[in-house]
């Protein structure tokens, strides 16, 4: 009987005096992430002391930077399209595709079947171009045909994976599932290089994070993303070009996924058609644990950066403790669901307050 009633925000739980009408300052949420990162570090280190070794930390930073860069795109998508159910499920496949294009155009197996041999920089640019464009295509379908982002990007996930197979087969001239193995200084820069003690991609990640944070906070375009995520009809009536905005954010997500793929490929010195399978889970975790609300209109880049570290810490720590991968799936899935539930609880509470204020 209460199922219909429950659809009215704020009506379902009349009981229990609502908390004071102030929400947790974001600082509070971010502080919690920092504490959690520290607590987990202590916990993992007590089980496996090598967790705090230089190698391990470097490895953790690399993986955090890779997921974080893709997570920045996811954050932007969810902030701006959350009210439309916005999410990008294609990022894992897009990473694989970006890596495959970047590696595949290098001409490592330069044969009659593969007459392409590009300088690494150009190959990478092509990779970013393609993944960015495919992202834009998703955005176009969502904006023009008003399709659900979930469905469109699920389709794109499969399309990008298919293209990855084709690209790899083209590059190595055979269609088995082996990857492209190669060695290239520019890819090494992505995968292996350090600035002092800090991996170069971590610097890249922080620079990109700062750029996107600036875009969200300090530009008119960034503001319009929050408006769109808060209330799409409102955004339209305020003169915001909703369609163009959706296309741009999905293009950004595609592009950053491509970049993440190049990093992954650089770390492994190989591009496999099976690369990055299931990585969309980590990336969505990064955005959601970072405090980006799946209902749109709320989110922060600082949160995303911290969550990228947290998620990679969990990955690294569990690996070190030799937790079998099926258990890792179980743990990570649970964490994601808990993060979503926490967002919902927060939403329910604040929408209840909104109803009261009416």
């Amino acid at each position, binding site marked *: 009987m209460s199922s219909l009633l429950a659809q009215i925000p704020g009506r379902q739980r*009349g*009981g229990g005096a609502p908390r004071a009408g102030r929400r947790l300052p974001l600082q509070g949420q971010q502080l919690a992430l920092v504490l959690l990162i520290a607590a987990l570090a202590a916990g993992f280190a007590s089980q496996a002391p090598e967790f705090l070794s230089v190698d391990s930390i470097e490895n953790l930073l690399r993986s955090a930077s890779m997921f974080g860069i893709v997570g920045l795109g996811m954050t932007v998508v969810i902030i701006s399209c959350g009210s439309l159910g916005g999410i990008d499920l294609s990022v894992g496949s897009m990473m694989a595709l970006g890596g495959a294009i970047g590696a595949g155009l290098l001409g490592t197996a330069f044969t009659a079947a593969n007459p392409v041999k590009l300088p690494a920089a150009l190959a990478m640019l092509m990779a970013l171009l393609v993944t960015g464009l495919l992202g834009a295509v998703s955005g176009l379908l969502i904006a023009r045909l008003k399709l659900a982002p979930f469905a469109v990007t699920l389709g794109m996930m499969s399309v990008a994976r298919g293209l990855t197979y084709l690209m790899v087969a083209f590059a190595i001239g055979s269609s088995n599932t082996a990857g492209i193995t190669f060695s290239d200084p520019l890819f090494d820069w992505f995968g292996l290089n350090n600035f002092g003690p800090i991996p170069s991609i971590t610097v890249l990640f922080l620079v990109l994070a700062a750029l996107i944070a600036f875009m969200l906070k300090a530009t*008119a375009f960034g503001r319009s993303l929050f408006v769109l995520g808060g209330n799409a009809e*409102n955004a339209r009536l305020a003169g915001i070009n909703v369609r163009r905005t959706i296309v741009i954010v999905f293009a950004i997500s595609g592009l950053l996924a491509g970049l993440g793929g190049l990093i992954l490929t650089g770390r492994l010195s190989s591009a496999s058609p099976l690369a990055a399978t299931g990585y969309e889970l980590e990336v969505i975790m990064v955005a959601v644990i970072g405090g980006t609300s799946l209902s749109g209109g709320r989110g922060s880049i600082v949160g995303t950066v911290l969550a990228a570290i947290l998620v990679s810490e969990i990955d690294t720590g569990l690996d070190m403790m030799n937790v079998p991968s099926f258990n890792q799936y179980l743990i990570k899935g649970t964490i994601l669901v808990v993060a979503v539930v926490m967002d919902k609880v927060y939403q329910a509470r604040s929408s209840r307050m909104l109803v009261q204020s009416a």
Partner: protein
Amino acid sequence: MVASSTPQPLLRMEGITKSYGSVQVLHGVELSVGRGEVLGLLGENGAGKSTLLNILNGVIQRDTGSIVIDGSPVEFTGPKQAQEAGLAFIHQELSVLPYLSVAENVFLNRLPRRKGAPWLVDWAACYRQAGEILERLAVKIHPRTLVGSLGTAEQELVEIAKALSMNARIITMDEPTASLTESEIERLFTLMRALKADGVSVIYVSHRLDEVAEICDRATILRDGKIVNTVDAQTTDSHALATMMVGRELSELFPKTEHERGRETLRVSNLSTVKVDDVSFTAHAGEVLGIAGLVGSGRTELVRAVFGADPITSGEVFVNGEAVTLDSPGTAIRHGIGLVPEDRKLQGAVLSMTNAHNITLAGLSKVSRWGQLDRGGEKQAAKRLIQDLQVTPSRIEQETGRLSGGNQQKVVLAKWLFAGSDILIVDEPTRGVDVGARAAIHGLLNDLAGQGTTIIMISSDLPEVMGMSDRILVMHEGRIAGELPRKDFSEEAIVMYASGLEPTTEGAKA
């Protein structure tokens, strides 16, 4: 109507307090309603009216105080308990579900069941009973219509029908008439009188003070969360009520100032949409053009089409003599047109954003250079508008969703004042706004007109539209049924045109 001499109270609320965080919004409020009495609850925006009614109906919990119904204290942990105790509540903001039919909304979670098979819904009975209730309200809406396809006022009527269908002992109505026109209000009042006769009690909130004498027996006035006075509504005039609400003498409402009518800024010729039929009109710089008409007559649809928010099937729009294709609100805004929409919750304000961000939302280019926001300038502009429009609390960092309904409306208006349109269309600009702020808004609109802005104003409030306009278009069933220049304004003429009749008054031309 006879003023009842405080009948045996059916409901007493005593010593009610409520705080949000460190802000106390209700300070020991006392209130009583007799059986079959209509009690007016009056107060400025943010006085705490909705908060009090939410507490009564179990939507939120009070901090202290007691509620006594029929002699026994009650404790509602949720809205459902309140309903079971015989209370019905018409919320200030619409709470209907857009993807359900009218009948489903009316009987939400109380759908009639089949005899002998109570686990099955009796749809025939559901639609029939919903139809009967709508008929009593004299509303021409089919019970099977999807609520989402109705206009705001019609949705409000569904909301009212829902409350009436509950056969409650006490009905609380939080600004039910804010978006209704005279004729629907009359119907509602007729029904309320019938309810009174049946011994049903009503708590009635409105910012239209002339309604108070018409329907209420007594009126309780709330100011800053405290009860100021309870008076006999029949013998207290609206000026005295307003003074008690505000706590000071009020400036005159509708301070109409005459200014030169300038060049033609907007010409609409033979415009048709799904709901608008071959409409032509012009508007001029410095003019306030009023649009009157019944609910559902196509007023909102007309201005939305002009704003590019709804598709046009035929017709042309000229801005400053130049033909423009209004394919999106963005285009309209670039041509200097602004629209304050009638539904603030869905179309007006982003409730999750702060006041400052809401205010600059339609004019971001004015506070940015090369796409980069000037956040200092943004804050200043927002601060100024919040003061001009008397938004309370006046913090620019306040989330708009936490404001009272009337204050949210002021923020929406501020947004379009900030965007600085040359042609400003306002759809029910003072809906839910208290008398004091209403005068401020009227003053602002007048000033804008004085500076050469074209104002197009839809209002269901006849005194408002007559007080403010230089010219009034009256719509009936998607067409312009009549046009009245200021010298020919009269309630009769407007009502006649609005109902599709020719007024007998001379001088009015169709």
